[in-house]
Protein backbone atom coordinates (compact mmCIF):
# COMPACT_ATOMS: atom_id res chain seq x y z
CA UNK A 1 0.00 0.00 0.00
CA UNK A 2 1.39 3.39 -0.98
CA UNK A 3 2.22 5.78 1.82
CA UNK A 4 0.43 9.02 1.10
CA UNK A 5 1.61 11.17 3.97
CA UNK A 6 4.44 12.51 1.83
CA UNK A 7 2.11 14.16 -0.71
CA UNK A 8 1.84 17.92 -1.01
CA UNK A 9 -1.73 18.68 -1.84
CA UNK A 10 -2.77 22.19 -2.83
CA UNK A 11 -1.70 24.83 -0.39
CA UNK A 12 -1.59 22.48 2.55
CA UNK A 13 1.74 22.09 4.17
CA UNK A 14 3.32 18.68 3.78
CA UNK A 15 3.08 16.62 6.94
CA UNK A 16 6.46 15.52 8.29
CA UNK A 17 7.69 12.38 6.60
CA UNK A 18 7.32 9.29 8.72
CA UNK A 19 8.89 6.04 7.76
CA UNK A 20 6.48 3.26 6.85
CA UNK A 21 7.81 1.05 9.61
CA UNK A 22 7.45 3.71 12.29
CA UNK A 23 3.90 4.51 11.25
CA UNK A 24 3.06 0.83 11.26
CA UNK A 25 4.55 0.38 14.70
CA UNK A 26 2.74 3.41 16.13
CA UNK A 27 -0.70 2.33 14.89
CA UNK A 28 -0.12 -1.31 15.71
CA UNK A 29 0.94 -0.67 19.29
CA UNK A 30 -1.59 2.09 19.94
CA UNK A 31 -4.20 -0.22 21.44
CA UNK A 32 -3.72 -1.92 24.77
CA UNK A 33 -5.49 -5.15 23.83
CA UNK A 34 -3.31 -5.56 20.75
CA UNK A 35 -0.16 -5.23 22.85
CA UNK A 36 -1.64 -7.70 25.33
CA UNK A 37 -2.33 -10.14 22.48
CA UNK A 38 1.20 -9.74 21.19
CA UNK A 39 2.67 -10.42 24.63
CA UNK A 40 0.50 -13.53 25.02
CA UNK A 41 1.58 -14.82 21.63
CA UNK A 42 5.26 -14.23 22.33
CA UNK A 43 4.92 -16.09 25.62
CA UNK A 44 3.05 -19.00 24.01
CA UNK A 45 5.62 -19.27 21.23
CA UNK A 46 8.37 -19.25 23.79
CA UNK A 47 6.56 -21.95 25.78
CA UNK A 48 6.02 -24.13 22.72
CA UNK A 49 9.62 -23.87 21.55
CA UNK A 50 11.19 -24.48 24.95
CA UNK A 51 8.52 -26.91 26.18
CA UNK A 52 11.08 -29.58 27.08
CA UNK A 53 12.95 -27.15 29.34
CA UNK A 54 9.94 -25.42 30.82
CA UNK A 55 7.84 -28.46 31.66
CA UNK A 56 8.62 -29.51 35.22
CA UNK A 57 7.76 -33.19 34.57
CA UNK A 58 7.51 -35.62 31.70
CA UNK A 59 4.03 -34.88 30.27
CA UNK A 60 3.50 -38.48 29.13
CA UNK A 61 4.68 -40.28 32.21
CA UNK A 62 1.87 -41.50 34.45
CA UNK A 63 2.28 -41.56 38.19
CA UNK A 64 4.56 -38.55 38.70
CA UNK A 65 1.84 -37.37 41.08
CA UNK A 66 -1.00 -39.18 42.71
CA UNK A 67 -4.16 -39.57 40.67
CA UNK A 68 -6.27 -36.39 40.44
CA UNK A 69 -4.02 -34.47 42.83
CA UNK A 70 -5.17 -31.00 43.81
CA UNK A 71 -2.91 -28.04 42.93
CA UNK A 72 0.15 -27.89 45.16
CA UNK A 73 3.70 -26.50 45.11
CA UNK A 74 5.02 -29.61 43.38
CA UNK A 75 2.16 -29.69 40.87
CA UNK A 76 0.80 -26.15 40.43
CA UNK A 77 -2.17 -27.30 38.34
CA UNK A 78 -2.62 -30.71 39.92
CA UNK A 79 -2.64 -33.95 37.96
CA UNK A 80 -4.99 -36.04 35.85
CA UNK A 81 -6.50 -39.48 36.50
CA UNK A 82 -3.28 -41.23 35.46
CA UNK A 83 -1.23 -39.01 37.74
CA UNK A 84 0.31 -36.99 34.91
CA UNK A 85 1.31 -33.42 35.71
CA UNK A 86 -1.31 -31.02 34.26
CA UNK A 87 1.05 -28.07 33.89
CA UNK A 88 3.54 -30.11 31.89
CA UNK A 89 0.79 -31.42 29.63
CA UNK A 90 -0.53 -27.90 29.18
CA UNK A 91 2.93 -26.69 28.16
CA UNK A 92 3.33 -29.52 25.65
CA UNK A 93 -0.23 -28.92 24.42
CA UNK A 94 0.81 -25.46 23.20
CA UNK A 95 3.04 -27.23 20.68
CA UNK A 96 0.12 -29.16 19.25
CA UNK A 97 -2.08 -26.07 19.05
CA UNK A 98 0.51 -23.88 17.37
CA UNK A 99 1.74 -26.63 15.08
CA UNK A 100 -1.74 -27.44 13.79
CA UNK A 101 -2.55 -23.74 13.48
CA UNK A 102 0.57 -22.71 11.62
CA UNK A 103 0.89 -25.64 9.26
CA UNK A 104 -2.81 -25.49 8.33
CA UNK A 105 -2.77 -21.74 7.81
CA UNK A 106 0.32 -21.97 5.60
CA UNK A 107 -1.00 -24.87 3.53
CA UNK A 108 -4.46 -23.34 3.13
CA UNK A 109 -2.93 -19.93 2.46
CA UNK A 110 -0.69 -21.17 -0.35
CA UNK A 111 -3.42 -23.26 -1.96
CA UNK A 112 -6.14 -20.64 -1.51
CA UNK A 113 -4.04 -17.72 -2.71
CA UNK A 114 -2.86 -19.73 -5.70
CA UNK A 115 -6.40 -20.67 -6.69
CA UNK A 116 -7.64 -17.13 -6.06
CA UNK A 117 -4.98 -15.47 -8.20
CA UNK A 118 -5.53 -17.96 -11.01
CA UNK A 119 -9.31 -17.49 -10.84
CA UNK A 120 -9.14 -13.71 -10.67
CA UNK A 121 -6.43 -13.31 -13.28
CA UNK A 122 -7.87 -15.72 -15.83
CA UNK A 123 -11.51 -14.77 -15.35
CA UNK A 124 -14.16 -16.48 -17.49
CA UNK A 125 -14.78 -20.18 -17.16
CA UNK A 126 -11.76 -20.91 -14.96
CA UNK A 127 -12.88 -18.26 -12.47
CA UNK A 128 -16.40 -19.67 -12.52
CA UNK A 129 -15.34 -23.26 -11.90
CA UNK A 130 -12.86 -22.48 -9.14
CA UNK A 131 -15.15 -20.09 -7.30
CA UNK A 132 -18.20 -22.39 -7.44
CA UNK A 133 -16.12 -25.19 -5.94
CA UNK A 134 -15.04 -22.76 -3.21
CA UNK A 135 -18.70 -21.82 -2.62
CA UNK A 136 -19.54 -25.49 -2.28
CA UNK A 137 -16.83 -26.06 0.32
CA UNK A 138 -18.10 -23.03 2.24
CA UNK A 139 -21.52 -24.69 2.55
CA UNK A 140 -20.05 -27.12 5.05
CA UNK A 141 -19.58 -25.75 8.56
CA UNK A 142 -15.84 -25.94 9.30
CA UNK A 143 -16.20 -28.35 12.20
CA UNK A 144 -18.45 -30.71 10.21
CA UNK A 145 -16.16 -30.74 7.19
CA UNK A 146 -13.08 -31.25 9.34
CA UNK A 147 -14.83 -34.01 11.28
CA UNK A 148 -15.84 -35.87 8.12
CA UNK A 149 -12.47 -35.40 6.43
CA UNK A 150 -10.53 -36.41 9.51
CA UNK A 151 -12.63 -39.54 9.90
CA UNK A 152 -12.28 -40.42 6.22
CA UNK A 153 -8.52 -39.93 6.37
CA UNK A 154 -8.45 -41.71 9.71
CA UNK A 155 -7.66 -39.49 12.69
CA UNK A 156 -4.09 -38.54 13.53
CA UNK A 157 -2.69 -35.06 13.82
CA UNK A 158 -1.58 -34.81 10.19
CA UNK A 159 -5.00 -35.72 8.91
CA UNK A 160 -6.54 -33.06 11.13
CA UNK A 161 -4.12 -30.58 9.58
CA UNK A 162 -5.13 -31.67 6.07
CA UNK A 163 -8.82 -31.48 6.97
CA UNK A 164 -8.56 -28.01 8.50
CA UNK A 165 -6.48 -26.76 5.57
CA UNK A 166 -9.05 -27.86 3.03
CA UNK A 167 -11.87 -26.35 5.08
CA UNK A 168 -10.17 -22.94 5.14
CA UNK A 169 -8.94 -22.69 1.53
CA UNK A 170 -12.10 -20.92 0.23
CA UNK A 171 -11.60 -17.89 2.49
CA UNK A 172 -8.22 -17.08 0.95
CA UNK A 173 -9.37 -17.92 -2.56
CA UNK A 174 -12.31 -15.51 -2.30
CA UNK A 175 -10.31 -12.62 -0.92
CA UNK A 176 -7.44 -13.14 -3.37
CA UNK A 177 -9.78 -13.52 -6.32
CA UNK A 178 -11.56 -10.26 -5.48
CA UNK A 179 -8.27 -8.41 -5.01
CA UNK A 180 -6.81 -9.79 -8.22
CA UNK A 181 -9.86 -8.74 -10.21
CA UNK A 182 -9.35 -5.13 -9.13
CA UNK A 183 -5.54 -5.15 -9.16
CA UNK A 184 -5.24 -6.46 -12.71
CA UNK A 185 -6.98 -3.33 -13.99
CA UNK A 186 -4.06 -1.18 -12.80
CA UNK A 187 -1.84 0.54 -15.32
CA UNK A 188 1.31 -1.05 -13.98
CA UNK A 189 -0.08 -4.46 -14.82
CA UNK A 190 -0.87 -3.26 -18.31
CA UNK A 191 2.63 -1.80 -18.63
CA UNK A 192 4.17 -5.04 -17.45
CA UNK A 193 2.19 -6.98 -20.02
CA UNK A 194 3.04 -4.52 -22.77
CA UNK A 195 6.69 -5.24 -22.00
CA UNK A 196 5.99 -8.88 -22.70
CA UNK A 197 5.88 -10.30 -19.21
CA UNK A 198 4.42 -13.76 -18.88
CA UNK A 199 1.18 -14.24 -16.99
CA UNK A 200 2.99 -16.15 -14.29
CA UNK A 201 5.53 -13.38 -13.75
CA UNK A 202 2.82 -10.72 -13.63
CA UNK A 203 0.88 -12.66 -11.03
CA UNK A 204 3.95 -13.30 -8.91
CA UNK A 205 5.68 -9.94 -9.15
CA UNK A 206 2.82 -7.47 -9.35
CA UNK A 207 -0.46 -8.93 -8.18
CA UNK A 208 0.66 -10.95 -5.16
CA UNK A 209 2.76 -8.30 -3.37
CA UNK A 210 -0.17 -5.89 -3.52
CA UNK A 211 -2.61 -8.47 -2.24
CA UNK A 212 -0.33 -9.25 0.66
CA UNK A 213 -1.57 -6.94 3.46
CA UNK A 214 -5.19 -8.16 3.55
CA UNK A 215 -4.00 -11.75 3.27
CA UNK A 216 -1.65 -11.50 6.23
CA UNK A 217 -4.51 -10.07 8.29
CA UNK A 218 -6.84 -12.86 7.19
CA UNK A 219 -4.24 -15.50 8.04
CA UNK A 220 -3.67 -14.11 11.54
CA UNK A 221 -7.38 -14.11 12.26
CA UNK A 222 -7.80 -17.60 10.80
CA UNK A 223 -5.16 -18.92 13.17
CA UNK A 224 -7.48 -18.33 16.11
CA UNK A 225 -10.32 -20.14 14.35
CA UNK A 226 -8.06 -23.05 13.43
CA UNK A 227 -6.84 -23.50 16.98
CA UNK A 228 -10.45 -23.42 18.15
CA UNK A 229 -11.43 -26.02 15.56
CA UNK A 230 -8.48 -28.25 16.46
CA UNK A 231 -9.51 -28.04 20.11
CA UNK A 232 -13.09 -28.95 19.15
CA UNK A 233 -11.90 -31.96 17.16
CA UNK A 234 -9.56 -33.23 19.84
CA UNK A 235 -12.33 -32.67 22.39
CA UNK A 236 -14.41 -35.11 20.35
CA UNK A 237 -11.51 -37.53 20.35
CA UNK A 238 -10.29 -36.92 16.81
CA UNK A 239 -6.71 -35.84 16.20
CA UNK A 240 -3.73 -36.41 18.42
CA UNK A 241 -3.26 -39.99 19.58
CA UNK A 242 -2.81 -40.68 23.29
CA UNK A 243 -0.58 -40.12 25.20
CA UNK A 244 0.08 -36.95 23.16
CA UNK A 245 -1.04 -33.71 24.75
CA UNK A 246 -3.71 -31.54 23.09
CA UNK A 247 -5.73 -28.93 24.93
CA UNK A 248 -9.09 -30.10 23.58
CA UNK A 249 -8.44 -33.69 24.60
CA UNK A 250 -7.33 -32.52 28.05
CA UNK A 251 -10.63 -30.68 28.48
CA UNK A 252 -12.52 -33.80 27.57
CA UNK A 253 -10.63 -36.12 29.88
CA UNK A 254 -10.85 -33.64 32.76
CA UNK A 255 -14.56 -33.14 32.18
CA UNK A 256 -15.44 -36.42 33.87
CA UNK A 257 -13.89 -35.18 37.11
CA UNK A 258 -15.37 -31.71 36.91
CA UNK A 259 -16.65 -31.63 40.46
CA UNK A 260 -13.58 -33.21 42.05
CA UNK A 261 -10.93 -31.37 40.13
CA UNK A 262 -12.34 -28.58 37.93
CA UNK A 263 -8.92 -27.10 37.15
CA UNK A 264 -8.20 -30.14 34.97
CA UNK A 265 -10.72 -28.91 32.41
CA UNK A 266 -10.56 -25.19 33.10
CA UNK A 267 -6.80 -24.77 32.65
CA UNK A 268 -6.70 -25.98 29.01
CA UNK A 269 -9.95 -24.10 28.27
CA UNK A 270 -8.43 -20.84 29.48
CA UNK A 271 -5.26 -21.51 27.47
CA UNK A 272 -7.28 -22.03 24.30
CA UNK A 273 -9.27 -18.90 24.93
CA UNK A 274 -6.20 -16.76 25.63
CA UNK A 275 -4.42 -17.88 22.48
CA UNK A 276 -7.49 -17.43 20.27
CA UNK A 277 -8.12 -14.01 21.78
CA UNK A 278 -4.50 -13.05 21.24
CA UNK A 279 -4.53 -14.05 17.58
CA UNK A 280 -7.78 -12.14 17.01
CA UNK A 281 -6.43 -9.02 18.67
CA UNK A 282 -3.12 -9.11 16.82
CA UNK A 283 -5.11 -9.62 13.61
CA UNK A 284 -7.20 -6.57 14.48
CA UNK A 285 -4.09 -4.54 15.15
CA UNK A 286 -2.42 -5.67 11.93
CA UNK A 287 -5.52 -4.75 9.98
CA UNK A 288 -5.63 -1.24 11.42
CA UNK A 289 -1.92 -0.74 10.89
CA UNK A 290 -1.63 -2.26 7.41
CA UNK A 291 -4.88 -1.24 5.81
CA UNK A 292 -7.64 0.42 7.83
CA UNK A 293 -9.97 0.24 4.82
CA UNK A 294 -10.43 -3.44 5.58
CA UNK A 295 -12.36 -2.60 8.74
CA UNK A 296 -15.70 -4.39 8.60
CA UNK A 297 -14.54 -6.62 5.75
CA UNK A 298 -12.12 -8.81 7.66
Amino acid at each position, binding site marked *: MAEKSGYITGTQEAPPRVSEWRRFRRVFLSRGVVVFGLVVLVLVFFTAIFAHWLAPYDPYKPGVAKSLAQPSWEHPLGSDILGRDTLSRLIYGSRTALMVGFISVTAAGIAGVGLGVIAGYSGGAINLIIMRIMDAIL*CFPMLILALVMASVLGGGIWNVIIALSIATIPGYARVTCGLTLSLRENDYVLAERAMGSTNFRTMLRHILPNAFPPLIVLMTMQLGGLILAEAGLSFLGIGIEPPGAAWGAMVNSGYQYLLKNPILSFAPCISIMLVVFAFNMVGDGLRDALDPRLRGLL
Partner: protein
Amino acid sequence: MTTYIIRRLIQALIVLIIVTLIVFFVMRLLPGDPIIIYVAQTAQLEAMPPEMIDNLRAQFGLDKPIMVQYVNWVAGIFRGDFGESIFYHEDVGKLMAERFPVTAHIGVLALIVGAILGVIAGLLAAIRRGKWVDKIITPLTYVGITIPVFFLAILMIYLFGLRLGWLPISGYTSPLEDFVKSTRQIIMPVVCMAVFGLAANARQMRSSMLEVTHQDYVRTAWAKGLSERMVIMRHAMKNSLIPVITLMGLGVGMILGGSVLVETIFAIPGVGRLMVSSILGQDYVVVQAITFVIATIVLVVNLIVDISYGWLDPRIRYG
Protein backbone atom coordinates in the same frame (compact mmCIF):
# COMPACT_ATOMS: atom_id res chain seq x y z
CA MET B 1 -33.70 -7.75 -9.76
CA THR B 2 -35.50 -10.69 -11.40
CA THR B 3 -32.49 -11.50 -13.56
CA TYR B 4 -30.33 -11.33 -10.46
CA ILE B 5 -32.56 -13.79 -8.62
CA ILE B 6 -32.59 -16.18 -11.57
CA ARG B 7 -28.82 -15.96 -11.93
CA ARG B 8 -28.38 -16.51 -8.22
CA LEU B 9 -30.68 -19.54 -8.33
CA ILE B 10 -28.75 -21.13 -11.18
CA GLN B 11 -25.51 -20.46 -9.32
CA ALA B 12 -26.94 -22.12 -6.19
CA LEU B 13 -27.99 -25.13 -8.24
CA ILE B 14 -24.46 -25.55 -9.59
CA VAL B 15 -23.05 -25.26 -6.07
CA LEU B 16 -25.57 -27.86 -4.88
CA ILE B 17 -24.40 -30.30 -7.57
CA ILE B 18 -20.79 -29.76 -6.48
CA VAL B 19 -21.89 -30.32 -2.87
CA THR B 20 -23.38 -33.72 -3.78
CA LEU B 21 -20.16 -34.63 -5.60
CA ILE B 22 -18.02 -33.64 -2.60
CA VAL B 23 -20.21 -35.49 -0.11
CA PHE B 24 -20.39 -38.63 -2.20
CA PHE B 25 -16.78 -38.92 -3.28
CA VAL B 26 -15.27 -37.88 0.04
CA MET B 27 -17.26 -40.63 1.72
CA ARG B 28 -16.05 -43.19 -0.80
CA LEU B 29 -12.48 -42.55 0.27
CA LEU B 30 -13.41 -44.08 3.61
CA PRO B 31 -10.86 -46.50 4.92
CA GLY B 32 -12.45 -49.86 5.48
CA ASP B 33 -15.08 -51.63 3.43
CA PRO B 34 -18.56 -50.59 4.60
CA ILE B 35 -19.88 -54.08 3.91
CA ILE B 36 -17.27 -55.68 6.15
CA ILE B 37 -18.19 -53.21 8.91
CA TYR B 38 -21.85 -54.02 8.38
CA VAL B 39 -21.24 -57.72 8.53
CA ALA B 40 -18.97 -57.44 11.53
CA GLN B 41 -21.79 -55.75 13.40
CA THR B 42 -24.49 -58.22 12.49
CA ALA B 43 -22.81 -61.59 12.44
CA GLN B 44 -19.60 -63.51 12.75
CA LEU B 45 -17.43 -62.32 9.89
CA GLU B 46 -15.51 -65.60 9.65
CA ALA B 47 -18.71 -67.59 9.54
CA MET B 48 -19.97 -65.71 6.54
CA PRO B 49 -19.31 -67.26 3.13
CA PRO B 50 -17.89 -64.88 0.49
CA GLU B 51 -21.00 -65.34 -1.72
CA MET B 52 -23.16 -63.92 1.00
CA ILE B 53 -20.91 -60.89 1.31
CA ASP B 54 -21.17 -60.39 -2.44
CA ASN B 55 -24.94 -60.67 -2.17
CA LEU B 56 -25.00 -57.99 0.49
CA ARG B 57 -22.75 -55.82 -1.62
CA ALA B 58 -25.25 -56.13 -4.45
CA GLN B 59 -28.12 -55.44 -2.07
CA PHE B 60 -26.55 -52.09 -1.06
CA GLY B 61 -25.64 -51.40 -4.70
CA LEU B 62 -21.96 -51.25 -3.82
CA ASP B 63 -20.96 -53.62 -6.63
CA LYS B 64 -21.88 -51.16 -9.38
CA PRO B 65 -19.46 -48.67 -10.96
CA ILE B 66 -18.96 -45.60 -8.79
CA MET B 67 -20.69 -43.20 -11.20
CA VAL B 68 -23.78 -45.42 -11.23
CA GLN B 69 -23.70 -45.46 -7.42
CA TYR B 70 -23.51 -41.66 -7.41
CA VAL B 71 -26.47 -41.29 -9.77
CA ASN B 72 -28.47 -43.78 -7.70
CA TRP B 73 -27.67 -41.88 -4.52
CA VAL B 74 -28.74 -38.52 -5.97
CA ALA B 75 -31.89 -40.10 -7.44
CA GLY B 76 -32.61 -41.56 -4.00
CA ILE B 77 -32.39 -38.12 -2.39
CA PHE B 78 -35.05 -36.82 -4.77
CA ARG B 79 -37.34 -39.62 -3.64
CA GLY B 80 -36.49 -38.84 -0.02
CA ASP B 81 -34.60 -42.12 0.21
CA PHE B 82 -31.26 -41.67 1.96
CA GLY B 83 -30.52 -45.37 2.31
CA GLU B 84 -30.39 -47.56 5.37
CA SER B 85 -28.17 -46.95 8.37
CA ILE B 86 -25.47 -49.59 8.78
CA PHE B 87 -25.46 -49.24 12.54
CA TYR B 88 -29.11 -48.60 13.44
CA HIS B 89 -30.55 -50.79 10.65
CA GLU B 90 -33.10 -48.10 10.11
CA ASP B 91 -34.09 -45.84 7.25
CA VAL B 92 -31.75 -42.83 7.39
CA GLY B 93 -34.52 -40.46 6.33
CA LYS B 94 -36.60 -41.62 9.28
CA LEU B 95 -33.59 -41.38 11.61
CA MET B 96 -32.97 -37.79 10.54
CA ALA B 97 -36.65 -36.94 10.84
CA GLU B 98 -36.38 -37.97 14.50
CA ARG B 99 -33.16 -36.07 15.18
CA PHE B 100 -33.45 -32.88 13.14
CA PRO B 101 -36.41 -31.39 15.07
CA VAL B 102 -34.35 -31.60 18.27
CA THR B 103 -31.43 -29.71 16.74
CA ALA B 104 -33.84 -27.26 15.11
CA HIS B 105 -35.63 -26.63 18.41
CA ILE B 106 -32.39 -25.61 20.12
CA GLY B 107 -30.78 -24.03 17.07
CA VAL B 108 -33.69 -21.80 16.11
CA LEU B 109 -34.11 -20.61 19.69
CA ALA B 110 -30.38 -19.86 19.84
CA LEU B 111 -30.57 -17.98 16.56
CA ILE B 112 -33.50 -15.87 17.79
CA VAL B 113 -31.92 -15.16 21.18
CA GLY B 114 -28.62 -14.27 19.53
CA ALA B 115 -30.27 -11.98 16.98
CA ILE B 116 -32.53 -10.08 19.39
CA LEU B 117 -30.09 -9.68 22.27
CA GLY B 118 -27.20 -9.05 19.89
CA VAL B 119 -29.00 -6.24 18.11
CA ILE B 120 -30.10 -4.65 21.38
CA ALA B 121 -26.61 -4.92 22.89
CA GLY B 122 -24.99 -3.45 19.79
CA LEU B 123 -27.54 -0.67 19.66
CA LEU B 124 -26.98 0.25 23.31
CA ALA B 125 -23.21 0.19 22.90
CA ALA B 126 -23.43 2.44 19.84
CA ILE B 127 -25.78 5.10 21.21
CA ARG B 128 -23.90 5.27 24.49
CA ARG B 129 -20.50 5.02 22.86
CA GLY B 130 -17.66 5.41 25.36
CA LYS B 131 -20.07 5.40 28.32
CA TRP B 132 -20.20 2.60 30.86
CA VAL B 133 -22.76 0.54 28.89
CA ASP B 134 -20.38 0.47 25.94
CA LYS B 135 -17.43 -0.24 28.19
CA ILE B 136 -19.18 -3.33 29.52
CA ILE B 137 -20.75 -4.61 26.29
CA THR B 138 -17.79 -4.21 23.93
CA PRO B 139 -15.24 -6.22 25.93
CA LEU B 140 -17.91 -8.88 26.52
CA THR B 141 -18.43 -9.24 22.77
CA TYR B 142 -14.72 -9.96 22.42
CA VAL B 143 -15.07 -12.70 25.00
CA GLY B 144 -18.19 -13.99 23.22
CA ILE B 145 -16.48 -14.53 19.89
CA THR B 146 -13.37 -16.16 21.33
CA ILE B 147 -14.75 -18.45 24.04
CA PRO B 148 -14.75 -22.09 22.92
CA VAL B 149 -18.27 -23.48 22.95
CA PHE B 150 -17.23 -26.39 25.16
CA PHE B 151 -15.64 -24.06 27.70
CA LEU B 152 -18.89 -22.16 28.07
CA ALA B 153 -20.76 -25.44 28.35
CA ILE B 154 -18.44 -26.82 31.01
CA LEU B 155 -18.43 -23.57 32.96
CA MET B 156 -22.22 -23.51 33.04
CA ILE B 157 -22.48 -27.18 33.90
CA TYR B 158 -20.01 -26.68 36.74
CA LEU B 159 -21.71 -23.57 38.09
CA PHE B 160 -25.44 -23.99 37.47
CA GLY B 161 -25.57 -27.76 37.22
CA LEU B 162 -23.13 -29.15 39.75
CA ARG B 163 -22.45 -26.34 42.26
CA LEU B 164 -25.82 -24.62 42.44
CA GLY B 165 -27.95 -27.47 41.16
CA TRP B 166 -30.36 -25.15 39.37
CA LEU B 167 -30.45 -26.83 35.98
CA PRO B 168 -30.21 -30.41 34.73
CA ILE B 169 -26.82 -31.05 33.10
CA SER B 170 -27.95 -33.35 30.33
CA GLY B 171 -30.82 -34.85 28.42
CA TYR B 172 -33.62 -33.66 26.23
CA THR B 173 -37.39 -33.84 26.52
CA SER B 174 -39.82 -32.81 23.83
CA PRO B 175 -41.61 -29.56 24.76
CA LEU B 176 -44.88 -31.20 23.75
CA GLU B 177 -44.37 -33.84 26.38
CA ASP B 178 -43.28 -31.80 29.38
CA PHE B 179 -42.78 -28.13 28.63
CA VAL B 180 -41.20 -27.07 31.92
CA LYS B 181 -38.73 -29.92 32.03
CA SER B 182 -37.88 -29.41 28.37
CA THR B 183 -37.23 -25.70 28.89
CA ARG B 184 -35.05 -26.31 31.94
CA GLN B 185 -33.01 -28.82 29.96
CA ILE B 186 -32.41 -26.63 26.94
CA ILE B 187 -31.50 -23.38 28.70
CA MET B 188 -27.77 -24.14 28.88
CA PRO B 189 -27.48 -25.62 25.37
CA VAL B 190 -29.35 -22.67 23.87
CA VAL B 191 -27.11 -20.17 25.68
CA CYS B 192 -24.00 -22.05 24.48
CA MET B 193 -25.12 -21.95 20.89
CA ALA B 194 -26.40 -18.37 21.06
CA VAL B 195 -23.32 -16.70 22.53
CA PHE B 196 -21.17 -16.58 19.40
CA GLY B 197 -23.99 -15.19 17.26
CA LEU B 198 -24.99 -12.75 19.98
CA ALA B 199 -21.48 -11.35 20.22
CA ALA B 200 -20.98 -11.23 16.45
CA ASN B 201 -24.34 -9.51 15.93
CA ALA B 202 -23.60 -7.00 18.67
CA ARG B 203 -20.22 -6.11 17.16
CA GLN B 204 -21.68 -5.74 13.69
CA MET B 205 -24.65 -3.74 14.95
CA ARG B 206 -22.42 -1.39 16.93
CA SER B 207 -20.06 -0.65 14.07
CA SER B 208 -22.80 -0.23 11.48
CA MET B 209 -24.79 2.03 13.82
CA LEU B 210 -21.72 4.21 14.34
CA GLU B 211 -21.26 4.40 10.60
CA VAL B 212 -24.88 5.31 9.91
CA THR B 213 -24.99 8.12 12.48
CA HIS B 214 -22.65 10.17 10.28
CA GLN B 215 -24.92 9.91 7.25
CA ASP B 216 -26.77 12.93 5.91
CA TYR B 217 -30.24 11.49 6.33
CA VAL B 218 -29.67 10.89 10.01
CA ARG B 219 -28.49 14.47 10.44
CA THR B 220 -31.60 15.59 8.56
CA ALA B 221 -33.74 13.57 10.94
CA TRP B 222 -32.10 15.28 13.89
CA ALA B 223 -32.46 18.68 12.19
CA LYS B 224 -36.17 18.09 11.69
CA GLY B 225 -36.34 18.04 15.46
CA LEU B 226 -37.27 14.38 15.85
CA SER B 227 -36.77 12.81 19.23
CA GLU B 228 -33.72 10.62 19.83
CA ARG B 229 -36.03 7.62 19.94
CA MET B 230 -37.49 8.37 16.53
CA VAL B 231 -34.12 9.07 14.92
CA ILE B 232 -32.70 5.82 16.19
CA MET B 233 -35.68 3.54 15.69
CA ARG B 234 -37.04 4.90 12.42
CA HIS B 235 -33.92 6.04 10.63
CA ALA B 236 -30.62 4.82 11.98
CA MET B 237 -31.53 1.33 13.14
CA LYS B 238 -33.29 0.22 9.98
CA ASN B 239 -30.22 0.63 7.81
CA SER B 240 -27.85 -0.72 10.42
CA LEU B 241 -29.77 -3.97 10.50
CA ILE B 242 -28.86 -4.84 6.91
CA PRO B 243 -25.29 -6.01 7.58
CA VAL B 244 -26.58 -7.95 10.59
CA ILE B 245 -28.83 -9.98 8.26
CA THR B 246 -25.76 -11.27 6.40
CA LEU B 247 -24.46 -12.64 9.66
CA MET B 248 -27.57 -14.83 9.89
CA GLY B 249 -26.24 -17.01 7.08
CA LEU B 250 -22.99 -17.41 8.97
CA GLY B 251 -24.89 -17.99 12.20
CA VAL B 252 -26.83 -20.96 10.85
CA GLY B 253 -23.58 -22.63 9.80
CA MET B 254 -21.98 -21.91 13.16
CA ILE B 255 -24.96 -23.36 15.04
CA LEU B 256 -25.09 -26.52 12.94
CA GLY B 257 -21.34 -26.95 13.37
CA GLY B 258 -21.51 -26.17 17.08
CA SER B 259 -24.35 -28.68 17.56
CA VAL B 260 -21.75 -31.40 17.18
CA LEU B 261 -20.04 -30.25 20.37
CA VAL B 262 -23.02 -28.96 22.35
CA GLU B 263 -25.17 -32.04 21.76
CA THR B 264 -22.30 -34.32 22.70
CA ILE B 265 -21.69 -32.46 25.97
CA PHE B 266 -25.32 -32.17 27.02
CA ALA B 267 -26.27 -35.65 25.73
CA ILE B 268 -28.96 -34.27 23.43
CA PRO B 269 -30.25 -36.74 20.83
CA GLY B 270 -29.96 -34.33 17.91
CA VAL B 271 -28.30 -34.43 14.55
CA GLY B 272 -24.90 -33.30 15.86
CA ARG B 273 -24.60 -36.20 18.25
CA LEU B 274 -25.85 -38.62 15.61
CA MET B 275 -23.12 -37.24 13.36
CA VAL B 276 -20.38 -37.85 15.92
CA SER B 277 -21.55 -41.36 16.78
CA SER B 278 -21.92 -42.24 13.09
CA ILE B 279 -18.43 -40.99 12.34
CA LEU B 280 -16.94 -42.98 15.19
CA GLY B 281 -19.00 -46.03 14.12
CA GLN B 282 -18.10 -45.52 10.42
CA ASP B 283 -21.77 -45.46 9.50
CA TYR B 284 -21.05 -43.76 6.20
CA VAL B 285 -24.66 -43.79 4.97
CA VAL B 286 -25.74 -41.62 7.90
CA VAL B 287 -22.69 -39.32 7.75
CA GLN B 288 -23.25 -38.83 4.03
CA ALA B 289 -26.93 -37.96 4.50
CA ILE B 290 -26.41 -35.57 7.43
CA THR B 291 -23.50 -33.79 5.77
CA PHE B 292 -25.56 -33.32 2.64
CA VAL B 293 -28.61 -31.99 4.49
CA ILE B 294 -26.55 -29.58 6.60
CA ALA B 295 -24.72 -28.21 3.55
CA THR B 296 -28.04 -27.79 1.75
CA ILE B 297 -29.53 -25.86 4.68
CA VAL B 298 -26.52 -23.53 4.76
CA LEU B 299 -26.74 -23.07 0.99
CA VAL B 300 -30.46 -22.24 1.05
CA VAL B 301 -30.11 -19.83 4.00
CA ASN B 302 -27.31 -17.98 2.23
CA LEU B 303 -29.38 -17.84 -0.93
CA ILE B 304 -32.30 -16.29 0.98
CA VAL B 305 -29.96 -13.84 2.71
CA ASP B 306 -28.45 -12.75 -0.62
CA ILE B 307 -31.82 -12.25 -2.25
CA SER B 308 -33.38 -10.44 0.70
CA TYR B 309 -30.38 -8.12 0.73
CA GLY B 310 -31.50 -6.41 -2.44
CA TRP B 311 -35.05 -6.22 -1.22
CA LEU B 312 -34.03 -4.67 2.11
CA ASP B 313 -31.64 -2.16 0.65
CA PRO B 314 -32.90 -0.72 -2.62
CA ARG B 315 -29.62 1.18 -3.01
CA ILE B 316 -27.93 -2.07 -3.92
CA ARG B 317 -27.97 -2.49 -7.67
CA TYR B 318 -27.29 -5.78 -9.31
CA GLY B 319 -25.52 -5.65 -12.63
